[in-house]
């Protein structure tokens, strides 16, 4: 493909992600490397820009979850090609988030969406998966030094697991070390307040805004 400058590569990569076109995303990511374009810039101005646009389309109800998932598949396929070419990072370390669906629940689409948007916004996300015990969240947060523990559930029966995470942190005297945020179908800001969580977000975009506020910016 005839490409005149870096900006065009970025624009086309961004479009390929928005268009859910995994093949073109891979081809353009490879092309970017061939042309010697900086990998970080390619990720930021191409892949991430595309995923951000997809997120905007989701907020506008143009895109729904299937479209977002395919955009993120394209983004990740490009990432896997570009990441080995990233120069050693010189900037400040990224803020870490431990995320998962609490014990007793296996609905994980909402959690996956929040994860994708956090990664896109420059956070390092440790995804524990679903059906996760309260203790496992805290162990992983301690191990990784994560500032944020993000808990998700769609089931009212699993909601107490969220409260339990806060209780254990208090007992361990770690309440000020890790901040707890919650979300999911039956969760409300009133519930978050009741269990003493540090924040609630009704959707993925708001979750990113919340994490940015709590960590004082995304430091990428």
């Amino acid at each position: 493909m005839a490409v005149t400058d870096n900006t065009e590569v970025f624009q086309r990569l961004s479009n390929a992600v928005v268009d859910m076109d995994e093949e073109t995303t891979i081809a353009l990511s490879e092309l970017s490397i061939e042309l010697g374009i900086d990998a970080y810039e390619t990720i930021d101005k191409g892949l991430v820009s595309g995923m951000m646009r997809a997120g905007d389309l989701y907020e506008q109800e143009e895109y729904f979850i299937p479209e977002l998932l395919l955009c993120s598949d394209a983004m990740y396929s490009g990432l896997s090609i570009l990441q080995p070419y990233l120069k050693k990072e010189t900037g400040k370390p990224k803020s870490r988030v431990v995320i998962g669906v609490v014990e007793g629940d296996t609905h994980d689409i909402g959690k996956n969406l929040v994860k994708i948007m956090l990664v896109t916004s420059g956070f390092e996300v440790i995804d524990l998966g679903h059906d996760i015990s309260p203790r496992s969240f805290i162990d992983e947060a301690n191990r990784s030094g994560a500032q944020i523990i993000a808990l998700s559930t769609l089931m009212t029966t699993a909601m107490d697991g969220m409260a339990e995470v806060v209780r254990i942190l208090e007992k361990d005297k770690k309440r000020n070390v890790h901040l707890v945020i919650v979300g999911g179908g039956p969760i409300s800001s009133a519930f978050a307040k009741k269990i003493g969580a540090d924040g609630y977000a009704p959707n993925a975009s708001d979750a990113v805004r919340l994490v940015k506020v709590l960590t004082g910016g995304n430091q990428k």
Partner: protein
Amino acid sequence: MTGDLMKPAERLQAYSEGRPIDRLPCVPIVGNTAARVIGVKVSELRNDGRLLARAQVAAYKRFGYDGIRIFTDLYGQAEAMGAKVRCPLDETAYLENPAISNLDQIDSIRPIDPLKSGLLRQHLDAMERTLEAVSEEAPVTGALTGPFTNASFLVGTENLVRLTLKRPKAVHRLCRVVLETSLQYAEAILKTGCAPSLTDPMSSATLISPGLFREFAFPYLKSLIDFIHGHGKAVTLHICGKTHPVWEFMADAGADCLSIDNDANLSAAKAKVGNRVRLMGNVPPAAVMLQGSTEDVRMAVRKCVSQAHDNPRGYIVASGCSLPTETPFANIDAMMEAVREVGYPVTEIDPADEDTL
């Protein structure tokens, strides 16, 4: 003792015919909370038709609401088709793993005879027994999970929604297999004398676009609803989450009543499809019914009534979704009491009530 002047069946009949009634119909959608009414573990209900019927009848008598729905969880049919379901001792069952882990196995999913599933037979048995106990008094429905939702339990929700865009034909094939099983189960439910009550949460606009709904949820819902209508029964269709972009499709599919949750707005639904369908909903099941005070429940009921009591095709006060198991009895009582307090005809609801929510 409820103090009501009419029996549920009588009330609903009169309401449909535009005759006077004592109060609006009200259905707090009681599922596994019924286990608490008779003091058994939630998991005991799932596979025991006699006990499930006893619990549901006891709950109906305890609260005096206007419709019984035989339901423990969404997974009976999918489990019979190979999905793995986990049943905690005293909590609602949940999906542990879909029937297949590798999409190459998608063709291995075959229709099954629901009557060969022990679990579904127990649910049918519960429907029969419940109907026998209360048929003169109150309508009894049997929960039937929608085809698109069942398909998600068979291949995994993320897989399914990706496939809708990448391999639409495979999704249609899967939905047809599920539909075949659903039609048989619907027929078995109808044979008990109950009407199937449809629930299709995964087709919500919280998850998929109206375009995908039209393509993958609508045709199969319509087939099921046509079939049930063919047996002379009306159909309530419940979809959770955001539904405003698909209300018209839900009505087009033939549903007689739309049951919508608290992510949807009753006034907007009334404006859009109220001349075509009855509405039910949408007192918040978690934030109000489970966690709120009795006064919160009262205010939420009044807000719903003020929005929807004048719906041209009628309105049933209801929770937005099945109630969480541990919903306090006091809140269910408060819901019924709030509807009695409003009375009928609904004359005025203080608009100030609305501002407090």
